[in-house]
């Protein structure tokens, strides 16, 4: 698991997460997300394009981060989720609460015939 932080401007940052998020790596993710300086009206995008595995340990970290940003007055958007990853947010009901964008649904339809 690794995370790269890109500061787009004073109001917007993108965090590119990659690898596996599980009991071992989730604490590292939490630590690195906590390094993001939260300001009022900050817009943070978490990019999940390169996340190949995630379970409830990762969900826990994302939810905590989400709460922190919202309570600071900012906003979080989750982008680039694979259908598998999106499903995880969906079955746990988190997709109803959070702003989540599934990876290019219209263009990358590899599944089915």
């Amino acid at each position: 698991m690794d995370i790269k932080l890109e500061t787009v401007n004073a109001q917007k940052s993108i965090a590119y997460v990659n690898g596996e998020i599980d009991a071992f790596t989730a604490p590292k993710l939490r630590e690195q997300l906590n390094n993001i300086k939260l300001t009022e009206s900050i817009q943070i995008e978490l990019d999940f394009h390169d996340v190949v595995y995630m379970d409830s340990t990762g969900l826990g970290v994302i939810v905590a981060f989400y709460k922190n940003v919202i309570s600071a007055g900012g906003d979080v958007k989750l982008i680039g989720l694979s259908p598998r990853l999106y499903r995880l947010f969906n079955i746990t009901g988190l997709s109803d609460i959070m702003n989540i964008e599934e990876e290019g649904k219209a263009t990358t339809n590899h599944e089915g015939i």
Partner: protein
Amino acid sequence: MKEFDYFEMRIPAKPQYVGVVRLTISGLANRIGFSYDDIEDLKIASSEAITNAIQHAYEEDDDGEVVVGCALYKEKIEIMVADYGYSFDFKEVKKRVGPYHEEEDVQFIREGGLGLYLIETLMDEVKVLNDNGVTVLMTKYVAREQVTDNVEKITL
């Protein structure tokens, strides 16, 4: 012929080994023909159970161990995860696991939280034994038809 092929892993109760067991289970599931999506479900469910067990085992003892047993049948996989570090007689423990009851297994439910919910959602059957430690037995069937007895069959 034996009813199933049995694998057992005894691992230190440390989070860095969850991924190793996950990879192994993914390989075993592949051997009996699970689909890509079902293997992904198995990876999450088993990781949730192992993560819970590791947290329990570690609370008890810094050198705690967790045992993961996998029984491979032709049409299903049974995964047993125990938060006490000694091997078990798979068939014997299997007789003793049962459905869990929220009132009785409060601690297990609370600590399991979202993880337990995911196990229930992603596996076909989940049973628990709460006796000198927690044992979780979860089953997933290769072909969906086998678990949908009450669903109308499609005739081709």
